[in-house]
């Protein structure tokens, strides 16, 4: 029964995909014909050539507006065939761009992790700290990552580090709050047992509280990773240079929607992959009470 459910779900997904691509195909197949009213008047050969419609331009594959699924596949195949080329500082393959983005995310995220988990422990174990720091957390948490950008650029004076800072500042909150929440919510019985056994505070933290709070902490980490990946694309569109966000911006500058769509799908896939990693981790630390 369970197998058949997942089979049916899979089938439905495939059907939906076909449906979506079909709609895409139908809605884009007609647009190029309707899109050239300007030429219909005095069509002379030079004008057509200048507009990219001449006989010479036929090989140049001019794409106006939204690409068809076929055009998109063509672009995607092109990009995937050589993902690691490097034609100067402003033109690198998608593989290199993704690596840059992942590197930034990893760095900002790890710093956030290193700050959030110990701090969350302190906040979770001390009601005083919890109350004292709560207003700060509540105010800083909802700030949009891009709102930090001008401040970061101005004070840090380095766009690459600013990007990492923005990742840090945005991914710290879910981890901090979840850690504090998980640590504060450890069952009193277990803490009492630890106390009766006269366990040292360090041992108590690592062998009682940490395993008990781990599922909540990992959930926080998973949310943070999602946010970090969301933020990096936006941040890189702003700071430019390298990264998948810059790639999107650069292709948008060229109005090349096929490339933009390709990058968007890639961003989605990588995001999914990152999330799956944390899902696996979460499975490992979950326990039944």
């Amino acid at each position: 029964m369970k197998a058949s459910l997942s089979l049916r779900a899979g089938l439905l997904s495939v059907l939906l995909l076909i449906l979506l691509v079909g709609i895409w195909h139908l809605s884009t197949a007609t647009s190029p014909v309707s899109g050239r009213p300007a030429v219909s008047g005095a069509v002379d050969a030079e004008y057509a050539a200048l507009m990219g419609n001449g006989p010479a331009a036929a090989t140049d594959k001019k794409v106006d507006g939204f690409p068809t699924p076929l055009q998109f596949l063509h672009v995607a195949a092109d990009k995937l065939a050589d993902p690691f080329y490097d034609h100067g500082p402003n033109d690198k393959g998608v593989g290199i761009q993704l690596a840059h983005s992942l590197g930034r995310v990893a760095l900002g995220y790890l710093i956030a992790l290193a700050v959030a988990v110990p701090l969350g422990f302190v906040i979770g174990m001390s009601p005083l700290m919890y109350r004292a720091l709560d207003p700060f957390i509540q105010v800083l948490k909802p700030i949009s990552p891009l709102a930090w950008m001008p401040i970061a650029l101005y004070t840090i004076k380095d766009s690459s580090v600013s990007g990492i800072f923005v990742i840090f500042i945005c991914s710290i909150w879910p981890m901090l709050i979840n850690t504090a929440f998980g640590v504060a919510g450890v069952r009193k019985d277990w803490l009492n047992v630890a106390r009766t056994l006269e366990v040292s505070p360090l041992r108590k933290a690592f062998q009682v509280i940490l395993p008990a709070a781990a599922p909540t902490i990992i959930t926080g980490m998973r949310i943070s990773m999602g946010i970090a990946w969301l933020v990096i694309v936006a941040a890189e569109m702003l700071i430019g240079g390298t990264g998948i966000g810059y790639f999107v911006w650069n292709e948008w500058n060229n109005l090349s929607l096929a490339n933009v769509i390709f990058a968007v799908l890639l961003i989605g896939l990588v995001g999914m992959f990152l999330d799956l990693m944390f899902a696996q981790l979460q499975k490992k630390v979950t326990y039944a009470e």
Partner: protein
Amino acid sequence: MKNDTLYRPYSADVNLNGCSCGQHATQNEHNADEIRARQLRGGDPEALSGDFIEAAAVRALFPEDATRRRFLRAVGASTAIAAIASVLPISDLQAAALDKPGPLEKKDLKIGFIPINCATPLIMADPMGFYKQQGLNVTLHKTAGWALVRDHMLNGELDASHFLAPMPLAIAMGLGSSPQPMRVATIQNVNGQAITLALKHKDNRDPRNWKGFKFAIPFEFSMHNFLLRYYLAEHGLDPDRDVQLRVTPPAEMIANLRAGNIDGFLGPDPFNQRAVYDQIGFIHILSKDIWNGHPCCSFGTSKGFIDKNPNTFAALYRAVLNAAAMARKPESRADIAKAIAAPNYLNQPETVIFQALSGRFADGLGNVRNEPDRADFDPVPWYSMATWMLTQMKRWGYVKGEVNYRALAEQVFLLTDARRLMKELGQPVAEQRIHAGYRKFSVMGREFDPARPEPYINGFAIKRT
């Protein structure tokens, strides 16, 4: 007794068996040789300049020649040279006077640009080797917007950058940023912009009917903004009340035009041509129809960078001037379009760039137009250009109160350096008789006299002052 005879046999200083150095048969030959050597040395401008400075410096130290001679006799020449060198850096003075290009202080440079045709000279200088020729290793950094160019220049991430021509003036005055002294080394391009309208307005070409239109401009402190405002105001529209002006990055101008969010834009090429190419707009007028020869973008850096790296700055200056000289030649435009169309630089179809550069273009209404002066790359940063920009900043209320037009223009625009370097490079330097760097020009038929900026502003019917 007689010391004026030819060989002076009674003089203690003379060697009768030859000359005093022993390499000549007679003292006479020795003297003649010395004179010849001195004449030869005088013919060499470097040596002459060095010797002159040395003599002048020593004369300044010893105003009375008798004192100097007594001093030399007392301590000996070599001791004197060493003693004077310890207090007076004569060799440095000699080098400074020669203005010999010294070693480059910084070879690896990061230069910012916005991917538009305006930046042609500084972009093409990379693939075409003009930076390499000057011994510079330049990384061109494509930047996402003008505000970011400003921020990256202020925080020192970029060594130099492509600017909109009014930006360095605005930054120097602290408009829209913290004030920092910026310098305009060269104008990057003149003309080369256009007013593009959505196709639906192709029968509505009279600006008087444009009330309620929404226009996009790339930045507030841009010639685009000032020219569009000027153009609208000359047709009786108040740009602040009758139309809406939105600051929009060029690529988004096209998308917004397609979506119908804006009616048109005064934007940089290649995006005007791109709107035509993508069949969403047509070219209403070229910016040269507003002011033929108007500056648009500039190449500049901070005063701090110039002070710290004078030789590097001079080398960079030469590279960009050389590139501009090549870009001015119509026959080289095809190669340039090819070089800058690459994804690393403009990332645009080559034909679009070439149409905008060559001036033979499709106008979006079914005509092929031929306007050879659609785009040009005259690098001379005239003070009067800066003055005009300042008058427009004041006219539209970006600057309040007194503006010291002359001081700002002459501080920010490096006209003297541009002229000197162009002369050194053997480029035709603009007419020498305009020594002051101010020349009159007219914008839409209205004469601008840079000597009288305030009456000029007061002469406009629509203004914010």
